[in-house]
């Protein structure tokens, strides 16, 4: 474009815009919105909308990210809380079991004809060939051959004591012997540990009628256990030899699940007398 025409165009544009401005002055009154302004507004509207939408989208994405992070934090906190509650529930269940066992034990000790002393089982070895158990008996200690029972039945006898601890031979130990009596037949016999949680009842003549389920009690003839404590029940009967039955007994006390036991405070015959009588029942 020639410079002259350019100048003319410039003048036209500037004058035109001056007229436009003059037409919008407040002195003239009326609507200041001109057709050109309206058209431009329509053209620019979409840009403004796009900008606003972009801003909203960015803000929304930022808030969504923040929300996700907050949810993840809350989820982690809730998981930790859940674990803590589960631990609490397990603790409470254990406490409830212990309280129930103690209550049962208190009842048993109150109704028992013997003077009993509770002891805590701290170690139980009923899996190896020597079936023993370690007790915490308190400062009073324990004496040798002191009977150990639960509310269910006989557990064993003390074979060693030191300080507040005592070692107990379980009735299922292979070297354990207990003077026993069949409750229904009123026949005395000798119960012997057979390992693996079992006992056998020996010297029961075949003439005696023995059935599975018959209760076996202590006979009170061995100098260790008082009379009438449940020892177990007959779990099998077979013809052992020409003279005697072969009887297996399931112990009355569940030796695998012991937490508290009781020592029977009872005088035992002097050792010399027991030796004279032939201490073959140990």
């Amino acid at each position: 474009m020639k410079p002259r025409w350019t100048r003319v165009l410039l003048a036209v544009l500037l004058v035109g815009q001056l007229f436009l401005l003059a037409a919008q002055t407040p002195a003239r009154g009326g609507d200041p919105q001109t057709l050109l302004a309206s058209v431009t507004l329509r053209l620019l509207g979409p840009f403004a909308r796009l900008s606003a939408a972009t801003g909203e989208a960015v803000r929304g994405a930022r808030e969504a990210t923040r929300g996700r992070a907050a949810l993840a934090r809350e989820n982690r906190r809730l998981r930790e809380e859940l674990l803590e509650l589960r631990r609490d529930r397990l603790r409470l269940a254990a406490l409830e079991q212990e309280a129930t066992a103690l209550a049962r034990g208190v009842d048993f000790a109150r109704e028992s004809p013997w003077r009993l002393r509770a002891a805590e089982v701290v170690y139980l070895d009923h899996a190896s060939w020597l079936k023993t158990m370690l007790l915490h008996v308190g400062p009073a200690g324990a004496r040798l051959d002191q009977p150990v029972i639960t509310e269910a039945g006989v557990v064993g006898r003390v074979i060693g004591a030191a300080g507040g601890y005592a070692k107990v031979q379980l009735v299922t130990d292979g070297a354990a012997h207990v003077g026993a009596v069949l409750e229904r037949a009123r026949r005395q016999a000798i119960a012997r540990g057979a390992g693996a949680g079992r006992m056998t009842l020996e010297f029961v003549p075949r003439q005696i009628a023995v059935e599975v389920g018959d209760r076996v009690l202590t006979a009170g003839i061995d100098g260790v256990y008082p009379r009438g404590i449940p020892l177990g029940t007959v779990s099998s009967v077979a013809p052992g030899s020409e003279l005697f039955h072969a009887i297996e007994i399931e112990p009355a006390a569940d030796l695998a699940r012991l937490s508290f036991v009781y020592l029977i405070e009872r005088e035992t015959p002097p050792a010399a007398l027991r030796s004279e009588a032939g201490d073959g029942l140990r």
Partner: protein
Amino acid sequence: MAFAKFLAALAVAVLLHLAGTRVEPLFPLAVDLFLLVALLEARHGRPSGAMLAGLAAGLVADGLTGGPYGLFGFANTAVGYGVARAAQQLVVQRSTSLAAVFAAGAAAQQAILAGLALVFRPGAELAGPEWLLAKVATTALAGLAWTRAVERLAGGLARRRAGRAKPMELPK
């Protein structure tokens, strides 16, 4: 092609203006992207193109501001023409001179706007001098930065083209 570039630049200016206003409401007081678009076009030394570019950019600015329509249009048209005429007469290479051209354009626009406001809106509240200085400074810096970036890009492209076009030398 030049017209398409101008339209693209104007669209980018609109978006940046709207985004800047959303982030900081005082953004339009400190930065005039439409004037920058007009000045960048005017630097090529074509008065008619610069004038029309200033007109378009100014009218767009008028559409986005609450003032009377034609205020920025008039000012940017005049500034675009003036800077284009100046660019025909001067060869500006140094950064300070280039920044001075952009600053002068911004200052002239502010002066024209103030004059028009006095005439057509006597009661209008004008921006404070600190905002006028801020606008002049931002226009100068943004114009300088943009020009240098484009020159660097163009130089890099030219060097790559020259490297590719190098004739193969045969062994003697």
